[in-house]
């Protein structure tokens, strides 16, 4: 009887904690959604409301003509997609060498890759801007692609190498005996087996590049070249802030990314916390 009561209290405490947690986390998303559907006049009315008095769904359509929002989205897709391709194409062979081959300086290389994470783009911004000026890549989407790819290399190699290490090299050796070259064994045997890890890496790099703000803010001053993270600032002018448009656009930029993230979350965490440092 006493034990039952204790169990019950524990259960109630657990649910209370979980409810508070969810309310706190969802609160900003609730604000984003309800404000996105408010009429502009409601935003500054004397009698403030939590929910919109009249749900103005047309905001979600108006944004596309109020500013070059579609352009921003296309730029984001191009930059994030391009960075993902470059990061994976460079990352796979590197991760392959680091997981399958023995060579001098392997530990040093691995150490350098991990070290490179210490240099976040912000701290290097002065140097990056200088480099991009020299390469004539300021206001250039390709430049942004290469930068995002480079700053995601460490994670890409880390995740890919971790995946490759979990797969036994025997299959590739068998393929090689059957006459496949090194490249053939990689493409036909290892990559299909490593598909879940590769997809995780792809999505993770895509999301990182999609959400990147600092480099884009510094390098992209031409309006038609801005990705969405920088572009939403148009609704944030000095004399008037269009909160409803700002949040409606933000919703479009957020929801797909959250869905993608939910798909890879399990693989991602396992990959990040294991495999990388030792070996």
């Amino acid at each position, binding site marked *: 009887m006493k034990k039952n009561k204790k169990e019950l209290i524990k259960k109630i405490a657990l649910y209370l904690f979980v409810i508070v947690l969810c309310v706190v986390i969802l609160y900003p998303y609730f604000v984003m959604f309800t404000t996105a559907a408010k009429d502009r006049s409601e935003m500054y009315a004397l009698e403030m409301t939590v929910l919109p008095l009249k749900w103005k769904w047309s905001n979600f359509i108006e944004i596309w003509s109020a500013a070059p929002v579609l352009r921003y989205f296309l730029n984001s897709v191009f930059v994030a997609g391009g960075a993902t391709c470059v990061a994976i194409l460079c990352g796979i062979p590197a991760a392959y060498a680091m997981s399958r081959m023995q060579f001098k300086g392997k530990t040093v290389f691995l150490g350098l890759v991990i070290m490179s994470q210490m240099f976040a783009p912000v701290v290097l911004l002065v140097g990056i801007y200088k480099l991009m000026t020299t390469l004539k890549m300021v206001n250039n989407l390709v430049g942004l692609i290469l930068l995002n790819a480079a700053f995601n290399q460490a994670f890409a190699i880390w995740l890919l190498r971790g995946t490759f290490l979990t797969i036994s090299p025997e299959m590739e050796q068998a393929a090689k005996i059957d006459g496949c070259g090194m490249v053939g064994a990689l493409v036909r045997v290892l990559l299909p087996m490593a598909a879940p890890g590769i997809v995780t890496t792809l999505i993770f790099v895509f999301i990182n590049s999609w959400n990147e703000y600092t480099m884009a803010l510094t390098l992209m001053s031409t309006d038609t070249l801005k990705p969405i993270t920088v572009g*939403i600032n148009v609704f944030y002018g000095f004399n008037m802030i269009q909160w409803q448009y700002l949040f409606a656009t933000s919703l479009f930029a957020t929801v797909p990314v959250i869905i993608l993230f939910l798909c890879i979350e399990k693989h991602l965490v396992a990959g990040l916390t294991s495999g990388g440092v030792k070996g």
Partner: protein
Amino acid sequence: MKKNSGLKKLAPYVWMLPSMILMAVMILVPIVTVFQMSMSQITKAGVIKGFNGGANFKAVFASNTFWHTLQNTLVWTVVVVGFSTVIGFIVAMVLNQNFRGRKIVRAIVVFPWATSLIIQSVIWKYIINADYGSLNVILMKLGIIKSAVNWTPGANAYFAWECWIGIFVTVPFVTFCVLSGLQSIDDTYYEAAEIDGAGFWRKLFEITLPLIRQSLTVSTVLNIIYVFNSFPIIWTITKGDPADRTHTLATYLYKLSFYSGRSGQAAAVSVIGFVILCFCAGIYMILSLRAEKEDQ
């Protein structure tokens, strides 16, 4: 035959070449440039004019704003990483229990991690606005406060809110790192401990914490680097103002370089940032080496 083995020795480097070139050009070159610029005189147009000794560093060290910024950066890093680690750990312990709706809660906890920092910051900027912000409206509707509260009366209040947003977006990462560690712990450990009569705290300190040390270390080290270098939150909420009182090194160097046209000093601040991070990395290496020795 001999030629072949020579080629074979080269092979790994060839495989790594694309990745290394990409990182060398896009990361290593800027690092070198930053160091060079920190010791050079630079015109407003950004032309490097040659070595000027430690003049940039001297100018940075002579500025009161810099010392205040440095202090802010340490507070910001310690507070955000510290609170996030503790809260993230508790959330992970809860998510490791069995309860109805666990999968949904797990999914919700992912949200802040997947959302762009800039969007998250803009929403919070709206929430805490004193005139029309959502927090005041909700608290007034609930009858908790009578009239609108000014949530950001000064620099310290702004900075506290920035720390809160930092914690808010950092907790999920800790949670999922710890959770992956917790799920790899064998239940039999706890069963054995319960037979021995161990309570909650003893189980926590003698089983859980030692066994998830690896994941906790990874999340803490990575978080220190991210939070130390974090830019969008503070830039969105205050841009380092009022009166440059809420800067961290990241926003301060951005302002120096791209608003005040003092790239040389900005580069010097970058270098100071590196040195601090390298110092942290050094401590981490020593600690983990010592831990490894203890294990043997």
